[in-house]
């Protein structure tokens, strides 16, 4: 019972960490794109065009990175859970 409970806490912590990292994965490319765009625009006197392009590039890269990361993390997490469950079952049988 207690190992099941600790497993649930681990799952909850994993979800929290994933959510926080995932949020950053979308926000950072947008903000970096915007900052870089503003700097380049101020250098070349092209405001707002480079800012717009780089912000949109950031907004496109973020969700693509996020999805790849979510897919691989979920697959690994589910495989690990299956492995742990199998191990626990074997230990119980012994």
């Amino acid at each position, binding site marked *: 019972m207690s190992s099941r409970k600790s497993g649930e806490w681990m799952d909850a912590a994993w*979800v929290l960490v*994933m*959510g*926080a*990292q*995932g*949020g950053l*994965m*979308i*926000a950072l490319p*947008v*903000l970096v794109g*915007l900052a870089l765009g503003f700097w380049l625009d101020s250098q070349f006197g092209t*405001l*707002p065009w480079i*800012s*717009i392009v780089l*912000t*949109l590039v950031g*907004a*496109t890269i973020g*969700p*693509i990175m*996020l*999805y790849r990361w*979510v*897919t691989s*993390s*979920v*697959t690994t*997490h*589910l495989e690990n859970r299956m492995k742990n469950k199998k191990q626990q079952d074997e230990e119980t049988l012994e």
Partner: protein
Amino acid sequence: MFGEPTLTLGQTIGLLSPELLLLLAGLIILGLDAISPHKEEKAWLPRVTLAGLAAALVAAIMLWGYNTRVLAVLSCDPFALVIKMVALVAMGIVVLVSDVYIRAHSRYQGEFYALLLFSTLAICLLGGATNLIMVYLAFEFLSITSYILTGYLREDKRSTEAAIKYFLYGAAVSSIMLYGMSWFYGLTGTTDLASIASALTETWRPVILPSLVFVAAGFAFKIGAVPFHQWAPDAYEGAPTPVTAFLSVCPKIAGFAVILRVLMTALPPSGLGILGGDWRALLMAISAITMTFGNLVAMWQTNIKRMLAYSSIAQAGYILVGVVSASERGVTAVLLYLLAYAVTNLGAFAVVIAFSNQIGSDEIEDYAGLHKRAPGLALILIICLLSLAGIPLTAGFIGKLWLFSAAYEAGLLWLAAIGVINSVISVSYYWKIIRAIYLLPAETEERLSTSPALSVALGLAVTGVFAVGIFPGLLLDLLRTAAQVFGG
């Protein structure tokens, strides 16, 4: 509060009656399900759910003509009421197509129907939300019920995996949307949409761009627009098929309702360029890329649920054409197309469910010779696919005609042209299914049957496809009145 008319408790309850009736029906189902014996077949569950939806629909119809704020964060106006009516009709069809499938696949039927009712409640709240806090809470309410419904078959690994992916992706996007909303609050000191619009005229505008991108991320996720579309194919394929039908239609209705309300109220197009808060340039790009990407990728699919997932991504791109038109005609077109898309797509999914219930496959090649095994199902699927492609006399044609003409009137001829080209491209992958049904030989001659509930759903969908396609005038006055809420 906020200079609004003071409503009595009775008036407030009356104006919120569709939402309250849905809540009541959901709670009644949970209560009765808990006290009824486990082994009972519980055929009453879909009936009570349909009764709840019908009562809410009648309440929404009776509220027609009102245009007032409720509890400072909701509006009871023609636009909100049209969204509620479309959502209630769509959910009615979802309930009808779910009956046999859920009885066969899950022991927990009461919770399933209660979740469907709570999802409808969330959509109704989103339709009338006039405050960013309300928008966010209702969005999350809808998202959480959608995650649970996606992973409803706990023993099915694909369903669980799809739900976890959908949940994690959705949680990250939701946090970003909230971050964007907090920027808007920081800029304007308010979360009320109308107050944001007046406050933004005195604010440094370039900061609006990242705020807009973050909030748009949440909206794009909900409607499945590129680049926030990746969750859709996996969730559609892994979810129980009735839930796929729900996911393909209901979150889109909610998403477009919120997009229109937030953008047209808080950020009316200013003509100051994207850094000045004019979102049209951003949405034009998303619209063109979304419809092209969805259609091109749909061409390579061999699984019908996955193909319809990419098709629904393309449909979101078409609907965005009406949004970027940012006019009364554009909003009318969006509402008309949402209704057309809802009945058409749910009709297609009803056939997929009828097929899957008996054959257990969603592969397009297994549809070979369907016209001999189930001529009625084959014909209805073809009617729905032709409507999705936009062939005349169907709802899809009238919807697209209105969307593209709204774009033309707004001076966006190039976007309308991309839409027309994409409609032609879409015929190629719908043809793949039609070819399998009529031109390929069936492996077996065994006849397929449909349950009475599914037959009613199919009948409703086909009637809707032709009613909207042949007599759109019956609806247009209603939809125009709804569009006038944003003052053109």
